[in-house]
């Protein structure tokens, strides 16, 4: 008698366990985000201009705007985001394990990350390249003169691999000083523990802007790699990937079509001559419904966050301390690479 009770209890425990396993696979991220009531977004722990909390603890930046835009598309409210600051070493694990729903954390799109790490890049929001920064009094004008230098480098990034390749190919030697985070790299560089600091050129500019005496440091002209930075999600949930991809595309399309946070509401209310603007803002067609979002998701993104150009200018543009020119990140019509597939 007692034994049967015990055995059936064990069997029940086994069933519970297998039920829990089955639940893990095949759930929709979009439904989970809606049910949770907020988007869980993985961001950089602190790169001025791209992602950093301001004096009041509110996250601000170019990458943060992408999280805000996705939240605006889903909830109509850009504030419904829970930010998780992630170091480069833990970001993919955090995404794969479901701790965050998406990463908007200056992450380079590479073959092995896309294919082998089972991640899905949903576009490029910043075309970058790896550069070098040195103190001016070092008297160096080219990266080829850096033989024997000590180089501060964030571990677990593509820059670590590019650096090894660059110095090997050019027959130069160097001493790596691996550091765990962007801030730590800055501290070591400013203390003189390394001669050179290398990372993406955008982050170098952002970091130089935050120094006390930015003019004592120069960014060398060489760009040694292609670093297309973009948002990414887990493999295997294409619907969720589409939401993130078309949120970014909506921001780019809006800039291409001249829709801004100032005029979008007006355009949506009165309609325009251009059918693509109408589709983007939800006046025509059922594009939102196809994504599982409100039909005016484009309008929400643009009125509440802004178009691509507005976000760029406000966070990292030439009027900000970071002071980046559009360069490669200008629209394709203006000689850059930023281009959105049509809203049709």
């Amino acid at each position: 008698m007692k034994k049967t009770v015990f055995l059936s209890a064990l069997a029940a425990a086994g069933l519970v366990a297998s039920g829990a396993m089955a639940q893990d696979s095949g759930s929709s991220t979009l439904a989970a985000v809606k049910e949770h009531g907020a988007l869980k977004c993985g961001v950089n722990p602190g790169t001025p201009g791209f992602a950093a909390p301001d004096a009041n603890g509110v996250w601000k930046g170019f990458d943060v705007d992408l999280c805000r835009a996705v939240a605006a598309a889903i909830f109509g409210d850009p504030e419904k985001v829970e930010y998780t600051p992630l170091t480069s070493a833990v970001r993919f694990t955090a995404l794969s394990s479901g701790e965050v729903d998406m990463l908007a954390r200056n992450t380079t799109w590479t073959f092995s990350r896309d294919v082998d790490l089972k991640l899905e890049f949903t576009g490029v929001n910043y075309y970058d390249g790896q550069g070098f920064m040195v103190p001016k009094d070092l008297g160096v004008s080219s990266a080829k003169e850096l033989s024997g230098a000590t180089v501060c480098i964030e571990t677990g990034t593509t820059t670590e691999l590019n650096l090894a390749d660059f110095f090997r190919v050019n027959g130069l030697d160097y001493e790596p000083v691996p550091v765990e985070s962007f801030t730590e790299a800055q501290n070591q560089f400013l203390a003189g523990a390394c001669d050179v600091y290398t990372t993406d050129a955008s982050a170098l500019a952002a970091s130089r802007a935050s120094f006390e005496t930015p003019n004592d440091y120069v960014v060398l002209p060489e760009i040694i790699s292609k670093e297309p930075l973009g948002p990414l999600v887990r493999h295997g949930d294409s619907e969720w990937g589409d939401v993130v991809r078309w949120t970014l595309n909506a921001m780019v399309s809006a800039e291409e079509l001249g829709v801004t946070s100032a005029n979008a509401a007006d355009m949506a209310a009165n309609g325009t001559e251009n059918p693509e603007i109408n589709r983007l803002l939800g006046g025509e067609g059922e594009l939102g419904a196809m994504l599982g979002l409100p039909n005016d998701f484009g309008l929400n993104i643009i009125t509440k966050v802004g178009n691509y150009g507005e976000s760029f200018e406000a966070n990292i543009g030439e009027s900000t301390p970071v002071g980046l020119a559009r360069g490669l990140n200008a629209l394709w019509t203006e000689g850059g690479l930023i281009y959105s597939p049509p809203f049709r």
Partner: protein
Amino acid sequence: MTTMIDPPKADGFHISQLLYDTRYRSITIQVIAFIAFMFIALFLVMNVKSNLASLGKEIDFGFLKNPANYDIKQRLIEYDSTSSNFRAAMVGLLNTLFVAFLGCILATIIGVTAGVLRLSKNWLIAKIMTVYVETFRNIPVVIWIIATMAVLTETLPQPKSFRGENPDASMWLWDSIAVTGRGTYIPSPDWGAGSAFVVITFLLSLLGIWAFGRWAKRRFEATGQILPNFWIKIAIFFVPSLLVFFILGRPIGLNFPVLTGFNFKGGFELSNSFLALWLALSVYTGSFIAEIVRSGILAISKGQSEAAAALGIRPSRTMNLVILPQALRVIIPPLISQFLNLTKNSSLALAVGYQDLRATLGGTTMNNTGRELESMLLMMLIYLIVSLVISTGMNVYNKSMKLKER
């Protein structure tokens, strides 16, 4: 007197006895606990397997053969960025063992000194040691590591301060040692022809010291006379090696560090990340060892030192010949676990950018290949093996020190 156990039943075993008979109950509970444990373990393994399968990531150790593509600063074996991930892990493992080995030695020296001094009759010395022990063992080791690194980086002069006509900083000991904010550069030996003879002579004289020690001990036990052992040993240590060295025309030279380009070149570099990790781990673990040593000494009955004093043995000899040999039996077992702690704590190396096993296999390799589970399992296995080897070695030593019961 009442019996605690029910009298055995004559009609043999009944199933309800498993629960109600105190003779069988504990076995029943153990069996149930074991089955429950196995179920939980099975559930975890199955869960990991099914989640990995749904992500499309099968467990695969093939990444170890692929090129690592990154550089490592401190290499005890040949390595460059085209070497395999496996070799990178081995470089990291050697770095772990290097810092752990030197750390155990320094921690023991610090710990024994502080532990003995804490019992000193000198009030000031005893209190200073108390302050040392209480501060260091009550603050997390990672904070000590980072603080040491910050002090080394921020306060020491950078290489550029050594440059120019009137440099702000200068090298130590007749320009042979450079202490900089990046690392300390010490002269390294330059092996010329015939240096093997010098090394062999040196090893032979070490053997000689050991043989002399045994002979002196036997002589002491036989005659009771004490030779100036220390000075004789020092002489054996230096004289033959130096003689051969000069007879062969000084075959071993020194490579002095020289400031060339951005950094000091030549000599042997002890990077600040290594120094910070080594010093912080040693001083931290030393504070625990000090307490172990103190408790070991206090465990020896006071009568022992009083008896030694009554026999007219000097206090320093009392400590070395009477107290410490007995105290060691109490000290060694907890000392083993401190050595294990130090070895495992060395995995905090990444905090200061020292590339140990955790930073190579569990850091850059894991990040670049995305093989989290494989890297973690491999790392756990390696740390487990290292710890078991250390503890086996120390247990052998412990056995040899145990009271020989005859």
